């Protein structure tokens, strides 16, 4: 139906396009329990597969006896590496150019490693059978300390790499070395550091943690032997990449593989990688001719699927006496676990760690990263951050703080003094990035004012005095963080995953009656794509968002795309939506011109219609145009109204933000209370403010968890000490504070609608804000650096080491 409302603004509001806090279309299903997640999939005759896992972190496998398991009624098969070897599937390539055992081949390298795959009629029989598989191990020395991995006498972990002096990313300098990756100019940086008025040196450790989405990983493989077609449902953040990888390693032609990501119960990076479970479910289905489901339990998920972080970052930062930063030197020892299965663009084995100059104009810098093997699970995914950006942000935001201490300057002032100025954009960083846009000073000033920064500092000073007088045992910490993200991977010229350029795609089909379906190469894990993509399109093509169906996740119908992670969806697929929309509009303009009997150039776009310039009563709405495209023969034009766009972004986008956390810390118990958290985000053009706010809340809560207690901890012999949610810290509503959100809006100059991506900013900016608050509380007593997570005992230990318990 044509909307005859004459007022453009009123018509625009009805579209629910850009800027509208549109309610989510997904929620009607989800609130009724009608989501369709992997474990909800049930196929006739479906079998269940699960793993026998290693209790040892490092051991040789002397024998595997499956007889007792096979004797259990209902057990169909037990696969070991020996069974996969003839198929060439006992090892698989990782996203990082390494290879990984699918099933333990001769030895195990981390606790929880997949040793055998049991296939049974149901999961109860399966669980019983797993207990019956007898594996004889011979213990080997365990290496869990990344800083000792390259010691001369360190135990050899990867015997399969014996004698290989180079890997996917160049030279290997030791049997446990994976790669050295560098950016910037080390010699120049060293010169600057030597000549500087002030240099501080600090080791900043960003501990090992895990994305831990509430839904674990899983897959259902169904091989139809009559058609030769494999259908694979799974928790895939990048379904097309999975299809390509599955084709490459199985030899099944790509058109014969259909990968479907159904609803995904949170991803946060955990569901980017390819896991042995996926491979084994496929093999099992091929072997048995029946559908096979594999779903992890929580311990499996925390022990064996992709971890995040585990970066030992040794930094030096130099400045003039006045506080102008002159140089930054950073060397990282990156603990990659037993296999390098990082999910990064191929040319970036340390992700975008080289954004570690942050929001600051640092003229000279160097970054070197050494990846090493240890007896821990493989992975190294971007847990709600774009490829190591959270490590980079945490590093620089800690270095700024220690520099401020050294200089005796206020840390807020030191930041302001060194921000890249608005007129410096586009800004070329010393480590090689071109920041597209930013206005850091405006955001920072707004943030400081919003929290009453000067008053907070005054209150803190009073508190310290009161503490010294013995009137209180609580300290006040003011945690500052100004971060710059680098998202939207990425330009095909330098970003690829397994050779696939990191473009993304949108295909739109307008129906004759003026509604539409749009398909994307991405996949939502809760970000609300079905809602927001329709909003972008609504603004571009003048069809109400409510009339646009968005589909993702089925490789048989969706155009090829690289998936959803690293905050790339809006910058890349969102841009593809806008560009596809513009193609639609261009054709629509021709159709309207034909219908109105004017030249194309005589028309102008007005929200949902083309209007004859100077004759506002003459117009054709998109509804009319859509109908005409199907029922009128228009000379020179094909019927129909469809468009596809594959968008290769010219640059990354650089969202930024200013976060301030005010925290009360009980010196005696190590407990804390977050009194205030203010988060200002600038993600460029805002598509759906409600969803943006929701993303910020969620990301901040993950940041809270990471900073204040969440870790994957190992003991000396490689036992995972945090394998259940009793010990792996996920905060509840009770531990989570209320956040205040705010924004500035600096559109990206190169993105079609100026949007930059926001989902990961709160994790990137939040972690330093929380951590800096802890540090700041103890700063007056001499604390420079303390490692996360800041759980009760570690905070207590800070106080104890500073002698704050002796006076109490």
């Amino acid at each position, binding site marked *: 139906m044509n909307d005859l409302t004459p007022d453009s603004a009123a018509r625009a509001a009805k579209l629910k396009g850009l800027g509208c806090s549109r309610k989510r279309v997904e929620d009607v299903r989800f609130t009724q329990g009608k989501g369709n997640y992997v474990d909800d999939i049930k196929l006739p005759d479906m079998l269940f597969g699960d793993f026998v896992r290693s209790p040892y972190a490092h051991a040789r496998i002397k024998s595997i006896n499956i007889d007792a398991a096979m004797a259990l009624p209902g057990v169909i098969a037990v696969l070991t590496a020996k069974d996969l070897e003839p198929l060439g599937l006992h090892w698989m390539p990782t996203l990082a150019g390494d290879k990984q055992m699918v099933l333990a081949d001769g030895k195990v390298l981390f606790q929880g490693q997949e040793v055998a795959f049991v296939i049974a009629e149901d999961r109860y029989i399966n669980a019983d059978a797993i*207990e019956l598989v007898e594996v004889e191990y011979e*213990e080997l020395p365990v290496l869990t300390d990344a800083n000792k991995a390259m010691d001369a006498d360190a135990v050899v972990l990867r015997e399969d790499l014996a004698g290989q002096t180079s890997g996917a990313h160049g030279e290997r300098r030791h049997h446990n070395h994976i790669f050295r990756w560098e950016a910037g100019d080390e010699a120049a940086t060293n010169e600057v550091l030597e000549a500087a008025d002030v240099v501080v040196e600090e080791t900043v450790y960003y501990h090992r943690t895990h994305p831990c989405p509430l839904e674990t990983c899983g897959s259902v493989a169904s091989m139809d032997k009559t058609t030769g077609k494999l259908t694979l449902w799974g928790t895939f953040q990048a379904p097309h990449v999975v299809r390509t990888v599955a084709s490459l390693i199985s030899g099944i032609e790509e058109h014969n593989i259909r990968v479907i990501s159904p609803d995904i119960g949170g991803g946060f990076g955990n569901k980017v990688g390819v896991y042995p479970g996926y491979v084994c479910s496929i093999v099992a289905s091929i072997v048995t001719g029946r559908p096979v489901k594999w779903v992890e339990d929580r311990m499996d998920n925390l022990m064996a699927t992709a971890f995040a972080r585990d970066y030992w970052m040794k930094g030096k930062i130099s400045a003039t006496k006045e506080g102008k930063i002159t140089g930054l030197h950073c060397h990282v020892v990156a603990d990659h676990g037993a296999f390098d299965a990082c999910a990064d663009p191929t040319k970036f084995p340390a992700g975008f760690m080289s954004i570690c100059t942050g929001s600051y104009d640092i003229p000279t810098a160097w970054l070197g990263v050494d990846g090493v093997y240890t007896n821990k699970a493989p992975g190294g995914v971007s847990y709600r951050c774009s490829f190591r950006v959270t490590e980079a942000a945490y590093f620089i935001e800690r270095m700024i703080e220690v520099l401020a201490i050294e200089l005796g300057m206020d840390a807020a002032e030191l930041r302001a003094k060194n921000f890249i100025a608005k007129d410096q954009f586009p800004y070329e960083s010393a480590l090689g990035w071109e920041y597209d846009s930013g206005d850091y000073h405006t955001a920072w000033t707004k943030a400081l004012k919003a929290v009453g920064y000067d008053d907070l500092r005054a209150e803190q000073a009073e508190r310290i005095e009161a503490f010294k007088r013995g009137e209180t045992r609580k300290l006040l910490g003011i945690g500052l963080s100004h971060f710059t993200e680098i998202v939207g991977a990425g330009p095909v010229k330098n970003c690829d995953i397994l050779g696939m350029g990191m473009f993304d795609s949108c295909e739109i089909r307008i129906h004759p009656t003026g509604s539409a379906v749009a398909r994307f190469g991405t996949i939502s894990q809760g970000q609300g794509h079905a809602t927001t993509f329709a909003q972008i399109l609504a603004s571009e093509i003048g069809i109400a968002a409510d009339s646009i169906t968005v589909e993702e996740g089925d490789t048989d119908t969706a155009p090829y795309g690289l998936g959803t992670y690293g905050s790339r969806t809006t910058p890349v697929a969102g841009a593809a939506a806008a560009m596809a929309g513009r193609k639609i509009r261009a054709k629509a303009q021709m159709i309207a011109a034909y219908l109105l009997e004017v030249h194309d150039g005589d028309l102008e776009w007005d929200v949902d219609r083309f209007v004859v310039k100077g004759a506002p009563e003459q117009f054709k709405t998109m509804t009319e145009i859509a109908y005409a495209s199907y029922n009128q023969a228009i000379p020179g034009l094909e019927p129909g109204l469809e468009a596809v766009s594959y968008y290769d972004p010219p640059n990354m986008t650089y969202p930024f933000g200013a976060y301030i956390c005010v925290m009360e810390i009980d010196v005696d118990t190590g407990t804390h209370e977050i009194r205030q958290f203010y988060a200002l985000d600038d993600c460029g053009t805002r598509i759906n403010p409600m969803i943006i706010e929701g993303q910020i809340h969620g990301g901040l809560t993950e940041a809270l968890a990471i900073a204040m207690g969440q870790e994957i901890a190992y003991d000396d*012999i490689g036992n*995972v*000490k945090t394998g259940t949610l009793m010990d792996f810290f996920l905060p509840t509503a009770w531990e989570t504070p209320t956040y205040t959100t705010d924004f500035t809006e600096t559109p990206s100059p190169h993105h079609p609608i100026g949007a930059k991506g926001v989902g990961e900013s709160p994790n990137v900016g939040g972690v330093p804000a929380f951590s800096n608050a802890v540090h700041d509380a103890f700063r007056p007593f001499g604390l420079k650096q303390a490692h996360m997570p800041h759980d009760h005992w570690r905070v207590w230990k800070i106080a104890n080491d500073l002698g704050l318990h002796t006076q109490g």
Partner: protein
Amino acid sequence: MELSDEIEINAPQELVYQALNDPEILRQCIPGCEELIKHSDTELEAIVVLKIGPVKARFSGNVTLDTAGAPDGFSLSGQGNGGKAGHAKGGADVTLENKGDVTVLRYTAKAEIGGKLAQLGSRLIAGTAKRLAAKFFKKFADIVGTVDA
């Protein structure tokens, strides 16, 4: 995990030392010990059932004795496998000091626990190990002391 303690045993050092090498006495003293087979003077094989509340694990393992310090002390090391519950490895140094009719036994023990027990039961392991060790030496002192008496 490290444990250490000392206990006075109402028997002369020689007897205490002998008892420490007597599989039958050891079997009686080791909490949950179902079997203890002596393969040689220094090699033993044991099956021990460890029960912590609802958790029951049957460990089978080997113990090697180092008798070089006899009769003033000795060392032992061993490892055991408890199946799905996990595995353990450890050792102990025992010294005996003769105080007339009484012998002072001092021990320091080290243990590494792996697998599910370590992952899920870590908060209970140290306490339990301490109790089990205490139980062992109490029983040992009782038996050896009684023998003497």
